[in-house]
């Protein structure tokens, strides 16, 4: 953007300033034209020779198995080598990617104190809705009034009975709620004060085949911690992932600092990575934070994993973006992704012999009296988490971040993969000339707002749409916030017209909702991109 302005200004100056000097030169003649043609031809020929040589060199390098990401075998320096800042020193020889596209939405309501509080939550839920691809009415093996321990089976999918879905906490089953068409929406557990864990006899990794490991994971509940791309589904037991990706940092607005997750859990995380290594034919990849100049990644010391450093604004921490820059998902590829806290739960099954679904959750948002970290378990009740902490009458509770989280009412529970709750003001008010001269600052990527000059100002956002839905008009704005080789607007149009080959060709498989969330945020036409993308993903999945 800035480079463009400079270049344009430069050329404009050139046009106006050179003109008086050159006024005397005549228009030229036929002779000059022919000489010009010859010179142009010679330059073209030279360029052709050089580029053919360059191509041959790179073909040779490919044959010799040199990784083009690390060794530049071309005659030309790479564009990004010339223009981007170098990697911080602590990256050493690891793969480093600096992403220039994206946007950090600065919101008020972040956590200043890193101490972790205990949350007095009594009700927890395991919701079949959180597992994409299982039947809507799974077989529930517990009844209201039953006592369960953490790790006991709650339900299983009748199509796939080997995979067990286990309780995150110990306590008494108090309710089995049903949603639309009698589907099971929540199995609700009243937690014990002292948590009891079902004992799990974990096998040793050295003496176990992959099939045995998969069977063990399915029966112990560990399988449900996995997530498969494309489509974000629970993998089938027969699926073998090409690679497994773990993003160890989160760049979303007000996201928790992931170094808190790992404190004291290093052994469990390492064990989890080792287990995952057994499950894939490829590698386990860790995406590490390289945004600051000093090393702050608590994840740099783990073994058996390829490390990739990422710097740049949101969505640099999204695992989908990282996969795109490490090894993109091809049309027939399946890869798995996990959150840090899921890897730790997975590791603890093997190190401690228990299904420990404890989670550190960040309670954030400008509507809170005190944003803070709390320690709780998967599926905690959100209203209980926020008890006595909300400082507003008109607010929305979001499980996750404001970009791709889910709105919850007072009876809502934390979604399975979420480690954050955000509380934002509901913006259901009319605003006089709100589109032209807004008095209250609001987050925006647009430079039409004067506060673009203060990029670090923390905004107090609300949920108003700030405008009505329109057809696509503006182009190029999605590309500015999505650091992938993808044309989101054209992808969305192909989803609308249900052209499956075009969708997949344009990179549908590489995306999930959180990756296009920022595109949806910036959209001038207020298009519902995440819903649309999910429509496309469901459509493509149905075609399989």
């Amino acid at each position, binding site marked *: 953007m800035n480079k463009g302005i400079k270049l344009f200004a430069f050329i404009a100056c050139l046009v106006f300033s050179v003109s008086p000097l050159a006024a005397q030169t005549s228009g030229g003649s036929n002779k000059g034209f022919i000489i010009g043609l010859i010179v142009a031809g010679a330059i073209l020929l030279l360029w052709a020779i050089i580029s053919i040589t360059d191509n041959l060199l790179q073909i040779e390098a490919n044959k010799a198995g040199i990784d083009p990401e690390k060794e530049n075998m071309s005659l030309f320096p790479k564009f990004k080598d010339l223009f981007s800042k170098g990697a911080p020193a602590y990256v050493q020889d690891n793969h480093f990617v600096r992403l220039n596209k994206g946007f950090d939405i600065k919101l008020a309501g972040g956590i200043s104190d890193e101490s972790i509080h205990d949350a007095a939550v009594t009700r927890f839920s395991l919701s079949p809705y959180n597992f994409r691809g299982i039947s809507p009415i799974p077989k529930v093996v517990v009844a209201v009034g039953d006592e369960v321990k953490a790790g006991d089976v709650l339900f299983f999918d009748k199509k796939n009975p080997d995979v067990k879905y286990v309780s995150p906490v110990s306590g008494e089953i108090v309710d089995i709620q049903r949603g639309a068409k009698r589907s099971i929406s929540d199995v609700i557990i009243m937690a014990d004060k002292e948590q009891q864990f079902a004992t799990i006899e974990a096998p040793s990794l050295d003496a176990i085949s992959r099939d045995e490991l998969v069977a063990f994971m399915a029966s112990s509940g560990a399988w449900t911690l996995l997530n498969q791309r494309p489509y974000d589904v629970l993998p089938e037991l027969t699926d073998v992932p090409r690679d497994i990706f773990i993003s160890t940092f989160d760049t979303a607005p007000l996201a928790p600092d992931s170094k808190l997750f790992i404190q004291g859990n290093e052994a469990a995380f390492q064990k989890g990575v080792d287990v995952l290594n057994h499950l894939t034919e490829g590698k386990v990849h860790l995406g590490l934070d390289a945004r600051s100049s000093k090393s702050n990644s608590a994840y740099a010391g783990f073994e058996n994993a390829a490390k990739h450093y990422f710097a740049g604004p949101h969505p640099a921490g999204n695992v989908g973006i990282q996969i795109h820059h490490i090894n993109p998902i091809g049309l027939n590829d399946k890869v798995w992704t996990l959150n840090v806290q899921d890897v730790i739960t997975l590791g603890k099954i093997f190190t401690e012999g228990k299904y420990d679904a404890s989670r550190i959750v960040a309670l954030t948002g400008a509507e809170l009296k005190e944003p803070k970290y709390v320690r709780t378990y998967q599926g905690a009740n959100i209203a209980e988490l926020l008890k006595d902490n909300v400082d507003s009458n008109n607010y929305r509770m979001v499980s996750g971040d404001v970009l791709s989280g889910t709105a919850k009412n007072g009876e809502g529970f934390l979604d399975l993969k979420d480690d954050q709750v955000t509380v934002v003001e509901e913006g259901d008010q009319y605003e006089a000339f709100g*589109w032209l001269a807004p008095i209250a600052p609001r987050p925006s990527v647009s430079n039409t707002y004067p506060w673009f000059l203060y990029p670090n100002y923390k905004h107090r956002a609300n949920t108003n749409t700030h*405008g009505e839905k*329109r057809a696509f008009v503006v182009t190029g704005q999605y590309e500015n916030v999505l650091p992938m080789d993808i044309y989101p607007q054209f992808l969305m149009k192909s989803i609308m017209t249900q052209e499956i080959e075009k969708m997949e060709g344009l990179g549908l498989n590489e995306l999930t909702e959180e990756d296009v969330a920022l595109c949806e945020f910036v959209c001038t036409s207020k298009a519902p991109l995440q819903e649309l993308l999910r429509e496309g993903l469901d459509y493509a999945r149905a075609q399989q």
Partner: protein
Amino acid sequence: MGLLDIFKKIEPDKKKSPILHTLFDAVFTFAYSPNTVTSGKGVHVRDGMDLKRQMIHVVLALGGLFLFGAYNIGHQHFIAQGNYTGFLEAVGLKLIYGLVKLLPLFIVANVVGLGIEIITAARKGHAVEEGFIVSGALIPLIMPPDLPLWILAVAVAFAVIIGKEAFGGTGMNIWNIALLARVFVFFAYPTTIAGDEVWVAGYEKLAEGAATEYGFMITSVINPILEAIGSISFTPAVVADGFTGATPLSLAYQGGWDAVTQHYSTAQMFWGSIPGSIGETSKPLIVLGALFLLITGIASWRIMLSMTIGAIVMAMILNAWGASPMMTVPWMYQFYMGSFFFAMAFMATDPVTASGTNTGKWIYGITIGAIGMIIRTINPAYPEGWMLAILFANTFAPLIDHYVLQANITKRLKRA
């Protein structure tokens, strides 16, 4: 919230009077941003930018051109008489004269265009989309000052109905609406928009001694007021000796750069006190508007830059050829004449009709720059090339995008 209550009270029934309701909705959403909140399924917080804000910023960028355009209409009018030839003489009279010419054009273009938009929106049952805010501001600026209002009305109706609504409304059109209106006038009523006669307002024919025609507005409304307050007023006069009204471009055709400089200094051409379409003449104000659009990020710098490059390169090549007087005009002087900057800043950058991919934008811009320069220089039938070049590139923009996307698809398939 008093105003809000009034709005709520007068809201017409949607079923009984859909057109009235659509009109109400347009005015209401103009005055108050709606209270809709995000659905809870996607993002919870949205960017403050919407289409209204986007469009109005383009109009803001055009603001200076309206003022200067109005003034220049008056200025050229008096130069033809040989009166008040200094740029800052009789400022009030020139401005009044310009506004008398420009305001009806603006009002007719917007009433016709928005009227059609509101009727179609009511028929389709959606809100009035904002696209015409910009088109309605651009159309008066690219017309000659003396254009009969009925021709303007027909042209706008053609552009909005055939060019936009037939394709599905804002965001769906293939060709730039403002240019479509102009090209309609250009081919249907060529004598009103081409030649040396039409760029100076107020004369039936720019022959020596031809009389000034002041309309009802000036003779019966404005002149009495001016006389009442004791100011100078409009007095009938005749065209001065030797005045032609020819634009720099038509002069350059006949005699190259020398012929141009006999009539106009480079300073005049740069600052814009020359005859031409209303908004196109003042280069500094256009560049200011363009910088405003670039800094706010509303217009694509890729298109502006690539169009400039395309035009410069093509002008240099034509210089090297040098077969006609126009081709011998040094390439940088090409930018003093005609409407290159206006086309670059406000016409080519229309996001709906331009290429949608960033790579495509480069190709699109270079195409316009090169072809526009060719039309202007080589084809004697068309004095200026940007209108046709942009419409041509509009036509090919989807094709350019298709190949850019296809390259992306092929790359992905190869990787699999």
